[in-house]
């Protein structure tokens, strides 16, 4: 059990800076998730914490002890890898006991601990099999088992679910969270999948290009994204964005969407006349009332919920490079917005509908810095 601290940690490969000014403190027993698109440095940060990658600046503390100059074996951590990294020539039992054996534990204690961990992970029938004879989910549990028998100060997990199929991934996700709660071990988990981050984490660290964008709980990130990147990255389907001018007329602060007034918070009055980027989440759009009128370009029905697509008025679109979110699995279409609705109305393609963007649910971002404007 231990706290983890990153102080001004940096990593550069020659002149290329992979990670800069990484400051983070993780509480004892906390489940912390590093999330971001590929190449954002989240895995590098984890490997630096594990001692598998050298830091070029700053220091890392585990349990208050500076481990920056210690090897991975001396940091009292356990790690779960994306491809499990099980030793193919050893049985499950030997795989799980390997770390204890390397630390010179007596065979009887190794065996007792392995049996105990196997019971927790329901691996007892497979203890004498080789990894090859196991399914993906079982291998994944063996990798977890190898980590928990050691009773380390911290668990590090590098995309441990990405080799599993979708159904098993959801199941294992909750298993990991339950296990972590039960053992109370500080955990750092790396993923590119924001759904995993939102569902598992006590603390989410959103990263982009080696820089921390925002640290907070799932709710904080969802409700108060600090910048355009976090706003677009967190949530599925992602937040809708459109461009507009902040206007102030007769005490009413508003912008327009295709000619219709969209009321804004009064605190924006001082920025009247300036352009901004506005964001609203698909589930916050209210259908059937309001001043905005638009034709639906596509209706996707998922049974209970429906995703309605509609065009952003000409001149108000934002291209994807501005959002700087190049996630492959994000199917964002820069020309249209999406609303996520659960109601009984049967929507038709091409139907003209009324909708409202509630004032309290509109996020406003600076057009230059992309920082959120409060």
């Amino acid at each position, binding site marked *: 059990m231990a706290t983890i601290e990153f102080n001004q940690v940096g990593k550069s490969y020659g002149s290329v800076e992979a990670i800069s000014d990484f400051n983070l403190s993780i509480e004892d027993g906390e489940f912390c998730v590093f999330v971001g698109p590929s190449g954002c440095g989240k895995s590098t940060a984890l490997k630096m914490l*594990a001692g*598998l990658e050298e830091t070029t600046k700053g220091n890392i503390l585990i349990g208050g002890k500076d481990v920056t100059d210690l090897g*991975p074996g*001396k940091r009292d951590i356990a790690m779960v890898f994306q491809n499990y*990294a099980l*030793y*193919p*020539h050893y049985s499950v039992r030997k795989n799980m006991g390997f770390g204890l054996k390397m630390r010179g534990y007596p065979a009887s204690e190794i065996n007792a601990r392995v049996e105990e961990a196997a019971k927790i992970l329901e691996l007892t029938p497979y203890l004498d099999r080789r990894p090859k004879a196991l399914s993906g989910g079982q291998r994944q549990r063996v990798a977890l088992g*190898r980590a928990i028998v050691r009773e380390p100060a911290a668990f590090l997990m590098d995309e441990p679910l990405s080799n599993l199929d979708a159904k098993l991934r959801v199941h294992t996700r909750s298993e990991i969270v339950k296990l972590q709660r039960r053992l109370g071990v500080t955990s750092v988990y790396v993923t590119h999948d924001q759904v995993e981050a939102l569902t598992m984490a006590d603390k989410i660290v959103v990263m982009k290009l080696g820089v921390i964008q925002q640290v907070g709980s799932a709710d904080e990130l969802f409700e108060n994204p600090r910048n355009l990147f976090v706003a677009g990255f967190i949530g599925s389907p992602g937040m809708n964005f459109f461009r507009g001018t902040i206007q102030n007329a007769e005490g009413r602060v508003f912008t327009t969407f295709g000619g219709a007034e969209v009321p804004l918070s009064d605190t924006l009055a001082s920025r009247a006349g300036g352009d901004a980027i506005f964001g609203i989440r698909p589930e916050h759009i209210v259908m059937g009332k309001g001043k905005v009128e638009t034709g639906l370009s596509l209706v996707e029905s998922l049974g209970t919920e429906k995703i309605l697509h509609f065009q952003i008025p000409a001149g108000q679109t934002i291209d994807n490079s501005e959002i700087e979110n190049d996630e492959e699995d994000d199917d964002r279409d820069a020309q249209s917005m999406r609303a996520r609705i659960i109601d009984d109305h049967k929507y038709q393609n091409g139907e003209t509908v009324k909708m409202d963007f509630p004032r309290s649910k509109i996020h406003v971002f600076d057009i230059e810095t992309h920082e959120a404007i409060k």
Partner: protein
Amino acid sequence: MIDFSSPRHRHKLGYLLIAPALIMMALIIVYPILLSVDISFQDVKIARIGSDRKPFSIENYEWLFTSGEFYNSLWVTVRLLLFVGGTALIFGFACALLLNEKFKGRSFARLLVILPWAVPEVVAVVIWAWMLDSSFGVFNWILLTTGMISEPIAFASDPTSAFFSVCLVMIWKGYPFICIMLLAGLQSIPEEQYQAASVDGANVFQRFWHVTIPNMLPVLGVCFVMTALWVFRDFAIIFVLTEGGPVGSTKSLAIMTFEQSFQFFRMGRAAAVGVITLILCAILSRALVSRFAKSVA
């Protein structure tokens, strides 16, 4: 006209395409083997295609199993195999481990290692023969001028020196191939296994023992089989260096086969030696390959 793209006929196209290669194999490999088995059971002096068959006899094998010459050759071959195979494997593995590390000039070092393998065998061995020459050779010169020996070593005429000279050249010629094979094997070991082992607290020797060695066993096995087979049939190195002498100390089965057939013109006996060599090679490769194939499964 058969449509080979249809699933029903697809396999026929496969057979059709492989047929020329199979026919070639049959002509240049299988037929000579059968022919030499046939000759080994006849008392043939000089074999001529189309000449009359001699009566069936097991005389050649009787001679073989009662002559000290055959057992000497067999013993020379086994010693060569163990010494050359073992040393080349260790040396090649060490080189592969070095070349697998990241360092400046690594590609140049890889080129240097592969060089002995790329030089034509006879050319290389002639150079070695000169370097090992007892009067003019550079080896004796170095050993004499550094004072390590007081009189020149007769590399080619002393039985022990001759044997180890042959071993030296064979290892020099053979290890690059092993090294490249093992290097490929090393590169296929997932980096994460090493990372997991270091997180588990294994030091560099423990990582070598618990990760590198088990992952490499199949490749090491294949390498040993290939080196063993190479030692069995290599002819040029021994022939150019010592011609099998002195007093038979380097006369391997391959040299003996040559001697019987083209120096004594006893084709029947030569064929018998060849057949025995073939059987030994088959047993050896079968045993090693299946053993190591099992360890990967």
